[in-house]
């Protein structure tokens, strides 16, 4: 078995472990979805009252997703630290990038699930015509997802090392998540305005750049967080 193959299997096993834990405990998904659905309903209702429903839908949608991501990341970190699971992972011989990427994959799956629920809700509630550009919307959602999961996983581990725990996560995460949020909401908004080729592609490039930079930084820096955390 080659080293790459072994790393892939280890990563897959870690993702399966996290998914299995979530299926059993149902700690993250229900509260994340409830919060997201409530927020999307309230924001869409408020926008429709002020008559700017479709214009502001993209910003509101990504804001809702951002809040859901913070809740989900905080819960995931908390669960990892429960019953000493994180300490075992720290001592395990799994290479740090594999551990980091497996956590990113798990958070990305959770966030993808949130996107699958919330985006259609906004299409329905706000009458936003995003579904007419399904492929372009998928690209924005995918890159946005990767950006959020990569930086969120790293900062979730950083916040876990503090006394406040995941209470500090939103303060650390939001400034660094801002470029991803701005680019995602702008790219989604432009879909509704049919301003696709030039302007939209620039925001998509920014999203891609953020995802690549955050993933690379995470692979390098997670080692220091893993070493330090307890």
């Amino acid at each position: 078995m080659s080293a790459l193959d072994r790393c892939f299997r280890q990563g897959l096993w870690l993702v399966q472990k996290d998914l299995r834990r979530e299926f059993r405990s149902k700690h993250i998904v229900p509260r994340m979805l409830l919060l997201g659905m409530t927020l999307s309903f309230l924001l869409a209702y408020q926008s429709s009252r002020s008559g700017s429903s479709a214009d502001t839908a993209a910003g509101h949608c990504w804001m809702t997703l951002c809040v859901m991501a913070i809740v989900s990341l905080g819960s995931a970190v908390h669960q990892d630290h429960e019953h000493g699971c994180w300490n075992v992972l720290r001592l395990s011989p799994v290479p740090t990038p594999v551990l980091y990427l497996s956590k990113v994959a798990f958070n990305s799956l959770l966030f993808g699930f949130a996107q699958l629920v919330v985006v259609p809700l906004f299409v329905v509630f706000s009458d936003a015509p995003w579904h007419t550009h399904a492929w372009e919307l998928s690209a924005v959602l995918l890159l946005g997802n990767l950006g959020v999961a990569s930086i969120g996983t790293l900062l979730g581990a950083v916040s876990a090392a503090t006394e406040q725990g995941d209470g500090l996560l939103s303060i650390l995460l939001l400034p660094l998540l801002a470029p991803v949020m701005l680019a995602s909401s702008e790219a989604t908004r432009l879909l509704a305005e049919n301003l696709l080729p030039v302007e939209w592609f620039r925001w998509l490039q920014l999203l891609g750049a953020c995802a690549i930079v955050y993933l690379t930084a995470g692979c390098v820096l997670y080692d220091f967080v893993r070493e330090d955390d307890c």
Partner: protein
Amino acid sequence: MHGYVESRRRNSIVTQVLPLVMVAASVMSTWWVPVDGEMGDAQRIVYVHVSMAWVSLSAFIVVALTGAAYLWTRKLRWDDWSHAASELGWLSCGLTLVSGSFWAHEAWGTWWTWDPRLTTAFLLWMIYSALLTLRSGVSDVQRAANSCAVLALLGLIDVPFVVMATRWFRGIHPVAPEMAPAMRLTLFVSVGAYSAFFLVLLLGRSAQIGLSREIARQVARQSEAVHHRRTIPSKRASL
């Protein structure tokens, strides 16, 4: 303790020259430089605003580089620099935003606009704030240093965006505007004076942080020794 004394000696030389440079910069920007034809006296804000912006960006580079040096060497001396630079950077970035807002009110007729340069500068200030909050949230010095170094390296990504925002994105913030030679000279002197001021504060504050950590360590050691002395006789008595 030795580092603190050394920095005091170094500072005493710099602090004799620094007031002269600061006074020269203030006099030049207030009286000597000609009044701008379009904006009048409000244009003088630029000399403070640009200098502060320069200091805030340089400070973040210092924060990230010293953070990386800490991660590499694990010497807390680097973290003292990082800590001091993050405090000074937070202050100068805040002053950049405030002075820029006054300038924008005169130039554009609004206190704030969502220009890319303004937005990215505000994000930088938020990252600085997150750094300070993170540091205050961790009591263990090594762990705080580690977490802050990681966050500083991530936050460094914002610096090129602040610098290149006017070129990469459309905005209304001026990009290297034409200036009269006297204005240009005043700007250079102001930037130099504020940079020197930042350097002096950085040296002093980093030494102060190191000293306070050393005092805390000594106090902890002494109280431990006192506790040890108190517990040993009672144990002997019980035996």
